[in-house]
């Protein structure tokens, strides 16, 4: 489509003139199918760049809705999206359509789980990780290694960022580097230590560049190392090139523990009409008084010796000391899980 349409030619001219892309590269980019998992800081920059560069078929998955606190770094969203509470995937697709009407952006408002990840990944040429948690990344790693689909890890927190390109069978996968993820709640998150927009933008720009190399078919220039940067301390590091570990449980022994695991971070069950119970995936004890202090100002909070009730954003959460919560006013499991992780924490 790009070479036959003179306007399209003009549209991508600065990209096609670049020696690494060219007209054939641009044609391949136009035919490319990319899955973006997560549509927060990394995801919005990725979708923005993918759409502008003419990647033909983009699927973007996210379970959350746009909030004011996103606008500082999530480049596709505006105040109106946050006020209306639009799902991030939907808001991103709408913004993408305004930027480039000749590419297709399919929004999927969902949690990525062992049940849907293979279906999502299977139709993509490559997968871009823009999630905010390691559980999902291990799940993506399993699905991509199983199906032989490249994926590009990206993460940013505070002033730091990391990226890794995983080509199953060719480069190290996530489990080659660390066979098990660190326990949840032990790593810094953007909510606890903040994040600089520049760290997010740099990491996602590197991911986009790796994606374009893969789409045009230039594997020689792929980054085969773990990239680490700190924009505040002016620290940019690149490790040694990484090769697959023969002992890796995933790409070496082809065991897909995260895909087959029934233990996700939490489970949801419908309980009655318009209520969902979210149970934590591990035993935990919540200090309800402490949670009440943390939620002060978020909404209307009340506590009894047995539970804490939060009314916020049209939803009512009843949280119990064993970590479970009953979310009333919805029968949407993904929304319930999202509200749980936002207010109670994973």
């Amino acid at each position: 489509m790009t070479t036959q349409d003179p306007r399209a030619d003009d549209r991508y001219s600065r990209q096609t003139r670049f020696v690494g892309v060219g007209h054939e590269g641009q044609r391949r980019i136009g035919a490319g199918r990319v899955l973006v998992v997560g549509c927060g800081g990394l995801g919005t920059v990725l979708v923005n760049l993918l759409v502008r560069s003419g990647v033909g078929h983009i699927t973007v998955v996210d379970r959350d809705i746009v909030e004011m606190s996103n606008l500082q770094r999530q480049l596709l969203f505006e105040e109106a999206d946050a006020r209306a509470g639009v799902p991030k995937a939907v808001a991103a697709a709408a913004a993408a359509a305004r930027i480039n009407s000749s590419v297709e952006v399919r929004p999927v408002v969902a949690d990525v789980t062992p049940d849907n990840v293979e279906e999502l990944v299977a139709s993509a040429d490559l997968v871009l990780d823009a999630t905010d948690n390691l559980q999902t990344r291990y799940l993506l790693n399993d699905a991509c290694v199983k199906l032989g689909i490249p994926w590009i890890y990206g993460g940013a927190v505070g002033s730091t960022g990391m990226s890794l390109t995983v080509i199953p069978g060719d480069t190290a996968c996530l489990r080659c580097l660390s066979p098990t993820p660190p326990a949840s709640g032990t790593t810094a998150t953007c909510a606890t230590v903040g994040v600089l927009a520049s760290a997010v933008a740099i990491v996602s720009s590197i991911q986009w560049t790796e994606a374009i190399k893969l789409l045009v078919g230039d594997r020689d220039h792929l980054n085969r190392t773990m990239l680490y940067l700190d924009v505040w301390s002016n620290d940019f590091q690149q490790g040694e090139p990484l090769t697959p570990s023969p002992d890796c449980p995933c790409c070496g022994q082809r065991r897909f523990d995260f895909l087959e695991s029934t233990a996700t971070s939490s489970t949801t069950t419908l309980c009655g009409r318009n209520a969902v119970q979210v149970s934590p995936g591990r035993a935990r004890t919540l200090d309800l008084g402490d949670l009440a202090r943390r939620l002060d100002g978020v909404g209307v909070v009340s506590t009894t010796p047995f539970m804490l009730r939060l009314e916020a954003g049209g939803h009512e959460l009843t949280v119990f000391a064993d970590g479970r919560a009953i979310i009333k006013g919805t029968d949407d499991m993904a929304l319930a899980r999202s509200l749980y992780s936002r207010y109670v924490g994973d």
Partner: protein
Amino acid sequence: MSGIDVIYLDNAATSFPKPPEVAEAILEFLTHKAGNPGRSGHSLAVAADAVVAETRRSLASLLGVRDPSRLVFTLNGTAALNLAMYGLLRPGDRVVTTSMEHNSVARPLFALAERGVDVIWLPCAQDGSLDLEDLDRALRAAPTRLVAMTHASNVCGTILPIGAAAELAHRHGALLLVDAAQTAGVLPIDVTEQSIDLLAFPGHKGLLGPTGTGALYVAPGVHLTPMQQGGTGTHSELLSQPDELPFALEAGTVNTVGIAGLSAALRVLKATGIEAVRAREASLVERLLEGLQEIRGVTVHGPLDSAQRVAVVSVILHGWEPVDVGAALDSAFGIAVRPGLHCAPLAHRTLGTFPLGTVRLAPGYSTTDDEIDQALVALRELSLSAG
């Protein structure tokens, strides 16, 4: 006994703990007998066949079934009920049922009504009881093919008069289907004496067996159209499904592993005696009801007389939503109950507890007095702290 620190009051959903003999029998079956019953003459097939046949006979003797072949194994109570209703009813047939039914009766009938079956819903009283005059009136109104009713409510425990209902149904030329999900293994049932035409029940509740088991009794002279066709190990030369029971309604390999477990459960149950189970549960219910009446802000649904109910007690705690009570009992006291609608929205409408439902406390034979007392203490504490 259970090995875990839970006070289990959800026996109406499934009984727990199972007698240890159940797990032992399953292990023994899988280790030594797990052939395909009736499919060959080798020792493992014969051993499996013997287990299935023995369990069928054991169930027959428990329920007053004279011909064990008229007991058809199913995956659960729901499958047995569906087999009965879809196997029997045709467009134009009339069915009389009650407003206390579980969705396993209500949903198939609702679907059949869309296919032209005429379904009459008899409203029950607010304590879940059925007025037999209402049934009589409904049966006089038009020729009726089937009366379908629960033996006891899974929401509030109310026992319905199935013996009298059978008499009325037969007087008006109708058959009686009984959903014995809450009563098989708990109340004495004799299909011959009580003239029950179709009796559907799971194996994993009062019968103390594993999930994946259940059965349908089909009285002599009642013909059901099979819902599925397939291998039976008999008459393999025929392409049509054999007519004789249980094979007509038992296509494919039955759940031999579960049936082996059920067999052991039935041995335990018979050694204990249904009367002893009934007496024990009645005593637990009396203890529970007495204690509940002493807690301010608790409303009990269903009859207060233990003779008129099984061990399924529904309560409302004022100022609390049932779903929150359930979570609080579990998280703060380790007590497992079932809050909500219990898959029986019609019954909750009858009790006036729709749509929030109730908190259901369902003790079982192995529940202790102390566990009932602990549940009462927990409810009293919750009642003092509005949800």
